[in-house]
């Protein structure tokens, strides 16, 4: 069953991230995904996350698809103009990839090619609109297509942003532009998320709460300082700081969050931050397996 069908049936879905390698050796990335086969509905293949140059999202999506796994093709506006983006979207559809997550993308300054020229011809909203247009049989120029893609479009939202109103406005815009599901930035504050969902619910779009594996107190503090919209409460930092076994504690934190968030949303999106091997345990302990 596809992600789209699962959501249509009202299933609570789980997605996870797959990171393409820095190089042409895809074995590792595929092994990590294989590890989660059957436990996770679909895999977000990141598009050069944090502006670090990696193997293309499209290629890895294709390789996953070939293995019978369901990819979510992440597309950012940082590196490609509307011609390349639409071209890649058509290619994805031709290769059987239907889930597309449209993002603006981080600035090149943050990555390993800070000298590159960022593109940003489109932004996430106009990219969604372009993709939705392709799915209706025409490109941005209004030209008819030979073969029409059947996309299931997604977008991201950051419920912890302060102020949150602009996020909601943009989410609304994204929904209007064609987003059919939303994945969120990492959530650590279920109360605030509940308030956000109250405001977001009328849009009627499924939301997958982002769960990031907290690896240490240091990481939590770093995120609090540097990642907008993410705030790890002191209590969780303390849990991590005082933990004897950090992996155990991390699983505990994730499970606790999932339990709290599950009634509020339609799915979760797991970001393992390299601790992929812990995800099966997280899913088991939170009762999401099978």
């Amino acid at each position: 069953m596809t992600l789209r069908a699962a959501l249509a049936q009202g299933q609570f879905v789980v997605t996870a991230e797959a990171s393409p390698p820095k190089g042409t050796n895809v074995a590792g990335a595929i092994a990590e995904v294989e590890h989660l086969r059957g436990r996770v509905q679909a895999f977000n293949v990141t598009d050069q996350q944090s502006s670090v140059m990696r193997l293309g999202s499209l290629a890895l999506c294709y390789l996953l698809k070939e293995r019978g796994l369901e990819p979510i093709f992440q597309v950012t506006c940082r590196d490609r103009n509307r011609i390349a983006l639409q071209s890649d979207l058509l290619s994805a559809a031709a290769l059987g990839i239907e889930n597309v997550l449209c993002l603006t993308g981080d600035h090149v300054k943050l990555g390993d090619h800070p000298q590159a020229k960022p593109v940003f011809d489109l932004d996430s909203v106009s990219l969604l609109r372009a993709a939705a247009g392709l799915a209706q049989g025409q490109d941005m120029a209004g030209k008819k297509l030979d073969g029409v893609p059947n996309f299931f479009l997604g977008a991201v939202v950051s419920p912890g942003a302060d102020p949150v109103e602009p996020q909601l406005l943009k989410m609304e815009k994204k929904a209007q532009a064609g987003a059919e599901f939303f994945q969120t930035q990492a959530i650590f504050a279920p109360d605030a998320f509940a308030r956000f969902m109250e405001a977001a619910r009328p849009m009627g779009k499924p939301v997958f709460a982002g769960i990031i594996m907290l690896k240490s107190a240091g990481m939590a503090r770093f995120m609090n300082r540097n990642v907008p919209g993410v705030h790890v409460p002191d209590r969780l930092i303390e849990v991590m700081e005082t933990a004897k076994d950090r992996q155990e504690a991390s699983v505990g934190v994730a499970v606790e969050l999932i339990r709290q968030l599950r009634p509020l949303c339609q799915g979760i999106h797991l970001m393992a931050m390299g601790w992929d091997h812990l995800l099966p345990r997280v899913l088991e302990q939170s009762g999401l397996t099978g």
Partner: protein
Amino acid sequence: MPAGSNLEAVLAAGRFAVTAELGPPKGTNLGVVERKAEILRHCCDAVNLTDNQTAIVRMSSLACAIHLRRMGLDPVMQMTCRDRNRLALQSDVLGAAGAGVRNFLCLSGDHQQFGNHPGAKNVFDLDSIQLIQVLAGMRDTRRFQGGDEFTGDIPMFIGAAANPFADPLPYRVVRLAKKARAGANFIQTQAVFDLEIFGRWMAQVRARGLHEQVAIMAGIVPLKSVGTARYMRDYVSGVVVPDAIVSRMEDAPDPKAEGMAIAVELIDAVREIPGVRGVHIMAVGWEDVVPILAERAGLLPRPLI
């Protein structure tokens, strides 16, 4: 280290190489690619997949190249600098190389004004020569452009385009030299119609010894109609179509047949020019003609190496 592509092997064996162009569809219909690829399968050594040619949105050259690879053909993945920055370009190369694509052709790309998205923002983070340098850097020094080193090999046979017919003429060979120096292995030229200009350019190429550094393949465009001939003469920058050729098309009872005859004559002629090591046939939507031309020019069967 050889890249391991068929095109590279044919050239290395000293055989006169043939490549042809395949335009991806404006949509998701892979069947079109498969149909065209089957036409080209036995009459050329490698197939160029154009990258949103003339800035019209089409399926990406990456997807098509991977698909051709899966079909057992040798793709040449064209890459332009118009739509992608260095991150995307390198990322696409990794994806393609990971799927077995070996030939990459580096182009600046037509300006978006000519396509159907004239309002698009162009990128041009790199130019074609810099793209060659970046790819050659990945291949030869195992470094990404950003400076990071990596392990393992990315075998690549790097191509570039050359235009012997555009202003300023004396600069054209200088530019070829730069492409060779940047790391290109093969060159596909703009469509040759004017053998005199082409011959002069080749003489300069030989004088600089460039034909030994890069394999030069002459571009051949079969003319389908009188209209095409006139259009190429009057509106396509950097293409010189002598009036004599246009007249031949005009006077011919069957312009299509005349177009094929002219193409065969051109192939025969460029083959005689020292330093020309192959032809690149750009049939722009008329792929059916490629096997006929190859046959009539005596280029079949293609070597199996």
